[in-house]
């Protein structure tokens, strides 16, 4: 499998446009956030597809619910409602159809850490949360990326660079991406 996560042409063009003229900071920030969101969604759905195609470890209703909410605007709720609505059912049906027709590629968790995210100016490993956040911060984004287990992933890469055997990853890759906000002020004024 190619390590680069494939981007749709319109998104690749948007990034290339910002790379050609790096003076428009809000546009560059918007393009970067859109590209990261798209790619992480691609990986999340690929991981879900992998679970669906396995004999055991089938995703439960809550997992489906979280995936469904990632593609929707507005406030998210952690717990699914008691009844499935038509849109939720349609999402599950459509995703299964995409998996069967190979429109959605399965991603094994073991290979996910080796995938490469397209940022402005090139690619970085999916595990490189520092580089992703550095670029987001530089562009004034309020989004933040967390990859876990971050230390183990960094250590595996460092071991490879130093010619040492890479330590086995004991945990599965987890990642979060979204807007963060500063904690409320203690005096209650902010």
């Amino acid at each position, binding site marked *: 499998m190619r390590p680069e996560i494939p981007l749709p042409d319109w998104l690749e063009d948007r990034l290339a446009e910002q790379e050609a003229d*790096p003076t428009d900071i809000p546009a560059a920030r918007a393009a970067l956030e859109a590209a990261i969101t798209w790619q992480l969604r691609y990986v999340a759905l690929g991981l879900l597809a992998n679970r669906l195609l396995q004999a055991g470890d089938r995703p439960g209703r809550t997992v489906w619910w979280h995936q469904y909410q990632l593609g929707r605007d507005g406030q998210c709720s952690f717990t699914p409602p008691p009844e499935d609505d038509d849109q939720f059912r349609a999402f599950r049906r459509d995703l299964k159809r995409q998996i069967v027709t190979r429109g959605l590629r399965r991603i094994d968790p073991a290979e996910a850490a080796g995938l490469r995210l397209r940022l402005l100016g090139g690619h970085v490993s999916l595990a490189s949360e*520092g*580089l992703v956040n550095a670029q987001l911060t*530089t562009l004034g984004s309020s989004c933040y990326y967390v990859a876990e287990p971050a230390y183990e992933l*960094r250590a595996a890469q460092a071991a490879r*660079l130093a010619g*040492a055997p890479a330590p086995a990853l004991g945990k599965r890759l987890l990642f979060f991406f979204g807007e963060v906000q500063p904690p409320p002020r203690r005096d209650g004024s902010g």
Partner: protein
Amino acid sequence: MTSPIPTVAATAFGLVRAGRPAAALQLIRDETGISRAADLPDLSGAAGQLAGAWAMLLHAAGWAAGDLGDDLAAWDLLVAGYGIAMRADLATSAGTLAYEIAVLDLRCGRIDEAQQECAIAIRLRLQREEDPLRPMLLLAGALAAASRLGEALAAVSWAVECAAATGDLAAWSDALERHGHIALAAGDYHTAVRQWVMALRLARMAGLREPAARVAGLLAELAANPVLAADPVLAGRDQ
């Protein structure tokens, strides 16, 4: 009887840190009779705290000798300290000494040896579940010195990533500065500009005057290059 070595080691280390290498060597000579690695007693059985103290003492002695320009004596002392630390399973001390030996090797132009020592220092840090930031930066420098620029860029990118992830502004700025140098060696002027502009901003944010002045000087040199005259990032470096 309690060994005087831990006290001497700590005092000598403090003296070198305070920029008094000659006083550190004098203290070690007066208290232990050691001025070079050949003067060392048989330490093959040293273990635990005593081995750690000897490793620290030899680290201080090697560092002081290096500061005074005696690289050969420095190397012997550091290697002796490294041997003691390794035999006593003191991974932290051994890793630090391996790093110091690599610094010396690189300074003396022994690039292959520096790479090997860096790799050892990195492995030992990883063994202790510590981020090997400094040895990785040094490895990047050693690889760049050997014209292995692709590998040097991978190593320095790792260091940038690590410093950014851990939020260490000083290390982040330092890593970006080095990334800029390696990019420049690879002929990638625009990446050098971007890394140095970011390094300058971080150094200013962290209140690091010396690195900020140094990077500002590098950018001023680049600004004089007609190829980069129209680079918008370079033009906006002081914003």
